[in-house]
């Protein structure tokens, strides 16, 4: 019996969220008294194995096939199916990254299982876990119990565990498992970044961020005025950039920039997890939202429940007064 933990990488460079998955797997392993095995799909003798075997785990398996060089869901599904059949794990633990979203449900379905995805925590009851996931856009939590038989597939939300809390060990054994990969029905091109960001919000001290609550492009003026009097930079949630009201390089979140300014003022932003991962490490978080139940208030230091169009002009006036 073991827990398999997925190590995600691009060209043998670790995706750091995999360390969070290691922490999660180690924690579950302790609770259930089972060892952790790290799984690294790669097309070569992955250099990452020597990095991962320093963690307190039993074993590192490099799953090898020439088609595992650039990620495709078909190749990954074939590889995982064989690893799972060969190792017969109790749990398969992964971070809920975009790549995992893409292949994990497929692997599970093929084995007659279902992923409990995007969990934020767990507790153990006997030899089974009860997992907590966010539902309804972060407005509610649900405790979920597992059905059927092992293996159980669990993915954890980014930030649910701390990557720097992954325990170091005395060197795990590294194994190579060569797998067969069948027909790959998609042809990947090289990943790329869209035109380099012209604004670097990671250096901003104060950020005024707007969400859908701003309602129209014209209304951005008042947020800009607030930013101006504060000496702040303007940023936004995704829908604002999707609508081209602000350029994409001002987007904060999992598909945009990750920032940690001294002060982050969220105006009319609900606080979806994909936004929060990009700004939750700000020193002071301020939220203005007319919905008292908006999830953004869960992480805010200061909150104003109300209409941003009433609050913001007063904020501007008050700042002007203070600054004289």
């Amino acid at each position, binding site marked *: 019996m073991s827990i398999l933990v997925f190590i995600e990488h691009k060209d043998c460079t670790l995706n750091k969220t995999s360390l969070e998955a290691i922490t999660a797997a180690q924690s579950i392993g302790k609770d259930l008294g089972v060892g952790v095995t790290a799984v690294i799909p790669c097309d070569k003798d992955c250099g990452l194995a020597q990095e991962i075997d320093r963690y307190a785990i039993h074993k590192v398996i490099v799953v090898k096939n020439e088609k595992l060089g650039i990620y495709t869901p078909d190749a990954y599904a074939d590889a995982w199916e064989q690893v799972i059949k060969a190792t017969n794990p109790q749990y398969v633990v992964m971070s809920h990254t975009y790549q995992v979203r893409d292949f994990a449900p497929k692997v599970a379905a093929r084995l007659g299982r279902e992923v409990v995805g995007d969990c934020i925590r767990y507790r153990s009851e006997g030899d089974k876990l009860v997992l907590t996931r966010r539902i309804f856009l972060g407005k509610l939590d649900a*405790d979920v119990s597992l059905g059927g038989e092992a293996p159980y597939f669990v993915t954890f939300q980014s930030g649910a565990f701390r990557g720097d809390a992954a325990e170091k060990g005395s060197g795990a054994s590294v194994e190579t498992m060569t797998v067969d990969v069948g027909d790959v029905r998609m042809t990947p091109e090289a990943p790329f970044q869209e035109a380099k960001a012209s604004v670097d919000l990671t250096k901003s001290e104060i950020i005024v961020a707007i969400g859908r609550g701003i309602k129209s492009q014209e209304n951005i003026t008042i947020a800009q005025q607030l930013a101006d009097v504060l000496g702040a930079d303007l940023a936004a949630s995704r829908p604002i950039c999707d609508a081209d009201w602000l350029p994409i390089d001002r987007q904060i979140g999992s598909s945009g920039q990750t920032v940690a300014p001294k002060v982050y003022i969220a105006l009319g932003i609900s606080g979806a997890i994909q936004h929060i991962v990009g700004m939750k490490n700000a020193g002071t978080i301020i939220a203005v939202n007319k919905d008292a139940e908006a999830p953004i208030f869960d992480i805010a230091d200061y909150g104003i429940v109300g209409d941003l169009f009433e609050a913001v002009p007063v904020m501007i006036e008050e700042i002007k007064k203070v600054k004289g």
Partner: protein
Amino acid sequence: MKQVANKDAVLRISSDEKWINETDVAQQTNESDGYALEEALRTVEAKGEGEVVVCTLGPQGAKSVIKDALARGAHRAIQIIVEDSKTLSAYQVAKTIADAIREENADLIFGGLQSDDASYGQTGVILAELLGIPHATIVIEVDRESLGETLRVKRELESGWYQWFTYKLPALMTIQSGISQIRYASLKGIMAAKSKPVTEVTPSVEAFASAPTIEKVYMPLKTKQTQMLGNGDAKAGAVELIEKLRSEVRVI
């Protein structure tokens, strides 16, 4: 396309604490599903032939999703009626849909990337596996010029990275919100929708041993002490906030 509780609806936890009480909650089409429909419509338009078939699984009332999609230009619909659909797991939803649409032998299936209520983020991927076709998730551009035996699509990766993939058809794509400008239903479209065919199926949903079960739904636990300012008065809150920014946070 899935029907979900309206984004702005006030959610009340049901008395058994297993879901919300949906009786008086306004419903809408799941956000990314609207974009999935738009991609389907544009693809058929670009091809100059073919039809868009919209499929939803849910209670009788989910018909409004279908009506709306037909009004926007879908050609016909398959309504899978399952009254207690909200208790189904992602696999069960995907399996029931797979059984209902398999015979359609669609060249392309578009779905949303995630539902705003259950948020499994899985149904499309499982559906593709059950139908034996390849899938792409988080698609943010469809290169319609490339449409033939294959289709080239742009997938979103994390932190501003992207990647193009070319898929052999048939294939399934899960669409990211904001990929395009969604069309409105015209008056003509709304009228035309009334005579478009809707096939109703009422399957018995197979039990699935590995389905996870919701034990309890509750309000998220607060992780931070939030100082609420203004007591519901936005202007008073603004005054208090600036005072805090001056005296406590010290940025003014």
